[in-house]
């Protein structure tokens, strides 16, 4: 659904939808959410939306529609929190990687929960790699292997970290609720 909304958002100028701290302060609160539908570059859109779409389809086919929806909402909310509350120097933001991170960790945990050791190990490794990189970048403030972005635009790793942790928390909560 986010991918479809993002495709629709491409019809509008990105500046009208991006997160803009000043404009949000002036009352344009919708930018908190619509900022996650627009991207700085085509490559960024392909990476973010591609991951969102692929993971969404896999979770949907697997029958995890409800938990995926909860993970998406939590990833989106945590992205808003990371951008608006935890990054006071960040004036403008675009990207849907927070929601994609939540789905990524959710999918990794789902695969890692299987009894098959050969699929559990790479899934756990993928999750650790993802969260480890995001944590390293968040605490050092240095982006690793970031793709090309326009001048003046930097990666916000805090979004990946919080989005991923949100996905992890949702999975654990749902598992407990399921087993309880």
């Amino acid at each position, binding site marked *: 659904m986010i991918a479809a909304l993002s495709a629709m958002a491409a019809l509008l100028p990105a500046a009208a939808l991006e997160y803009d701290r000043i404009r949000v302060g002036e009352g344009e609160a919708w930018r908190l959410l619509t900022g996650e539908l627009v991207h700085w570059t085509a490559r960024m859109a392909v990476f973010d939306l591609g991951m969102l779409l692929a993971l969404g389809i896999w979770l949907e086919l697997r029958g995890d529609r409800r938990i995926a929806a909860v993970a998406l909402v939590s990833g989106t909310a945590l992205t808003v929190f990371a951008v608006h509350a935890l990054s006071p120097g960040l004036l403008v933001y675009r990207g849907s990687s927070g929601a994609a991170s939540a789905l*990524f960790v959710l999918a990794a945990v789902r695969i890692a929960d299987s009894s098959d050791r050969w699929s559990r190990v790479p899934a756990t490794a993928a999750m650790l790699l993802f969260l480890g990189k995001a944590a390293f970048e968040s605490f050092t403030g240095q982006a690793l292997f970031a793709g090309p972005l326009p001048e003046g635009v930097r990666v916000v790793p805090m979004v990946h970290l919080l989005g991923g942790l949100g996905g992890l928390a949702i999975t654990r909560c749902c598992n407990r609720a399921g087993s309880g």
Partner: protein
Amino acid sequence: MRHRIALFFLSLPLLAWAAGCTGTLPPTRRVNSALDFLYPEGVTAAEPASEVVLKLPVRVGLAFAPNRHDQPDPITEEQKQRLLARVAAAFKEHQAIGHLEVVPTAYLQRGGSFANLEQIRGLLGLDLMVLLSYDQSQFTESTRASWTYLTVVGPLLIEGEKNDTRTVMDAVVYDVRSRALLFRAAGESTVKGRSSPLNVDRKRRTHAAEGFDKATDSLIDSLNTALAQFEEQAKTGTVQGPGTPAIAMYNAKGERITATGGGGAMGITELIAAALLGFSLLVRRRSLN
């Protein structure tokens, strides 16, 4: 005759002493500082700015920072206003500056800090404030020619005093709303001249004014360079590089004109992680089969 000769020799050291008194003046230093005005209780009391928002074209105020103490200025108020007008004229050439107001010195109180700037902003509708500081030192030394002061006409005709006037002018440009220092520039000059004991005060005043004039020329050049560098730097999203406040600039239509900000972008590492995830799925499917 003997009395006259004795009187002559006695008067020599007296004349030398008198020449020394009139010919050598202690160095003088006159300073005013924008930092003293903005942070009268020290910079540690200041809260760092986090973001700067500029809506172009901006309205800019220009003033000399008030003196630190009650010491008199080396130049008159009229000369100050003339120097400010020159700096203002240089600034007005930039399209980003819509209006430039020379703020009278009387509007700035000693140690008034940002509260005083807020008052001026409210009164004159300013966005940015340029505060000028100066540091001027004057040295007067006697040269060998000062021995001619022992003669009657020496102090009248011979300029045996060497004067050096060193002036440094500094301009700091602050965004009043966020209290962030946007950029600064400095200009300096050295004026060398000579004087006699009779005109030393007048010459020192003239050299002081000339020093300010020349330092202002140098300051205007530096300001133009600093402003161009600031415009380039602002495009990267911060005022003065990493660790300094973020900046966003909007044009008159309200469109953002600097590409500042962040993005949640997936990179190569995330792709590798996704590939690992795909691999684990593949392995699981095979084992299920």
